């Protein structure tokens, strides 16, 4: 009997996050058996407590760096991984918890915890790429499971993943959806947001929330001008950029410009 080919080891790592991205992988019910057949799942906290030692062919990293301990841990993971891919807005941009980056974190821990002196937390929530080299970033809050399977398939077979960096508008138009910003005057983040969700929200007459973060060459300033024209106030424009990808540079800068204008207004 031929010896079964050695399967590459896949590990999933968790940092500061809600586990939603790992759950997207678990949600790949139909594909999970095939994934388990193609790779050896060495570490996957949401699925099993067993941990198989490295090195790993592929590490999927969920979550952002928010503690001194995690800032160390990510280096060990990088050293034992041939490919390191961040999954989701937390790992890629710092996540919703990066809202702390715009406030004083000590003041916040003092309000929330009875004994803030026991809280060892960094002033900022930062993406994985600020700490170690990252081979690929999978966007989304949470990631899209089809993109996740596509990424794993592509890496296993040594091909380029089909994960475009263009706008959500492209997906809207490809599926024949009607632009809600043009036909209904609903503010939409789609023109500055990277595709990947299949234009989910515009399909339900909701403006895009920007879950997949800034697209390639985003023109956030122009979009804000359009939103103002639709009657959206400065404070709400600021909030639109301060969500899951608040710390991604184009969104952070756009929000800051509205913070300034907002303060000047008052």
């Amino acid at each position, binding site marked *: 009997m031929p010896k079964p080919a050695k399967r590459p080891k896949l590990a999933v790592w968790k940092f500061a996050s809600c586990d939603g991205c790992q759950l997207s992988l678990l949600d790949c019910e139909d594909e999970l058996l095939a994934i388990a057949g193609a790779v050896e799942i060495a570490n996957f906290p949401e699925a099993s407590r067993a941990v198989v030692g490295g090195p790993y062919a592929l590490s999927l990293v969920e979550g952002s760096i928010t503690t001194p301990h995690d800032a160390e841990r990510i280096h060990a993971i990088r050293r034992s991984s041939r490919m390191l891919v961040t999954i989701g807005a937390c790992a890629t941009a710092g996540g919703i918890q990066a809202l702390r980056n715009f406030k004083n974190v000590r003041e916040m821990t003092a309000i929330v915890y009875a004994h803030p002196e026991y809280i060892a937390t960094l002033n900022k929530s930062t993406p994985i790429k600020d700490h170690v080299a990252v081979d690929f970033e999978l966007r989304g809050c949470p990631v899209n499971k089809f993109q996740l399977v596509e990424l794993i398939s592509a890496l296993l077979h040594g*091909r380029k993943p089909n994960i475009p960096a263009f706008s959500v*508008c492209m997906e809207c*138009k490809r599926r024949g959806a*009607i632009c809600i910003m043009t036909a209904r005057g609903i503010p939409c983040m789609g023109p500055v947001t990277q595709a990947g969700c299949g234009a989910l929200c515009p399909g339900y007459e909701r403006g895009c929330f920007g879950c997949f973060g800034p697209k390639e060459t985003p*023109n956030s300033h122009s979009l804000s001008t*359009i939103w103002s024209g639709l009657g959206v106030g400065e404070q709400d424009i600021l909030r639109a950029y301060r969500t899951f990808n608040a710390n991604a540079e184009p969104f952070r800068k756009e929000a800051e410009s509205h913070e300034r204008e907002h303060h000047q207004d008052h």
Partner: protein
Amino acid sequence: MEAGEQFILEAARLGELLSALAHQGYEVIGPSIRDGAIVYEPVHTVDDLPRGWTDEQGPGYYRLRRRDDDALFGFNVGPHSWKKFLYPASHRLFTATCQQNGTQGAFRIVEEVPSRQPRYAFLGVRACELHAIAILDKVLASPNYTDPDYKRLRESTFLVAVNCTQAGATCFCASMGTGPGADSGYDLVLTELLEGSHRFVVRAGSSRGADVLAALTTRVASAEERELASSQLDHAAAHMGRQLDTGGLQALLYRSYDHPHWEAIAQRCLSCANCTLVCPTCFCTTIEDVTDLSGDHAERWRRWDSCFTTAFSYLHGGSVRSSTKARYRQWMVHKLAAWIDQFDESGCVGCGRCIAWCPAGIDITAEARALREAQAAGAHAP
């Protein structure tokens, strides 16, 4: 029946046309209201048509409005174009299998056999859209370079044109010489008359059109009715919402390659690609090769692409058009200038979709005018 003879079909009998087309095995696609817009979708009865509705359009703006009559085609073009059916947004070109699990097995391409070979009848094709289809024919079905899927769909498609008796605020077909009346390329053409009784002037443009027309309950149009129909087209031509001065435009655009105005447009342009995807003549696609996890099965897909993505001009080492300025310039210069070198005509039919569906409301006619004025001012500067 004389070739080009005009007949009257009462509006109440339009259903006969839909039935006749269905009877001949056509899947009728026509205007229908969905999600706040008039889109092109399968229509089964006259009740599916947007009776009594119109559209109000402007830069980055589109709204449905009620009319005060029962017009069935009392609107202009919406977010969809017929390329959605003739050249679908996502199309699988082939699948391939690899017999032995992931190793050096026999690789075999399985030709795509369409499970369904639709024969479309497009109902309500506007004059600018007939021209857009003719442009796509030149690009995708020329004798030298033929897209077999396009050609097959196109040849079997029956075209029912509708003349525009009103022009929209973003329309400029009169400038492009493509409308508002359909001149050729249709099987049947209708002109809707609302004065007096609600009726259509119908004319066949092909023998298969004449066959369908013969199956309908019609009468010969009177001289007054023919006159009324043509005066409505004159009225529409005189009331275009926009104009584009095409005189020397190609040379002007080539001369403007380094003009600072492109940067001014790039300040507003989102590089979102909406303009190219709504344009009825933009034909660019990308190819995606996918494998499944086992590696035993692969597929090749063709999907709509746009010169507004960085991947579009990616060569080894990076994107050739990394700036938004370069990408907007590519779009406009291709549509209005380079297309003429390639295909002996403009790539723009003046439908105005790129103006209405640009979230930033960038208006290709206004930008062309701005470049012309800037050049003129520059020429007169000391």
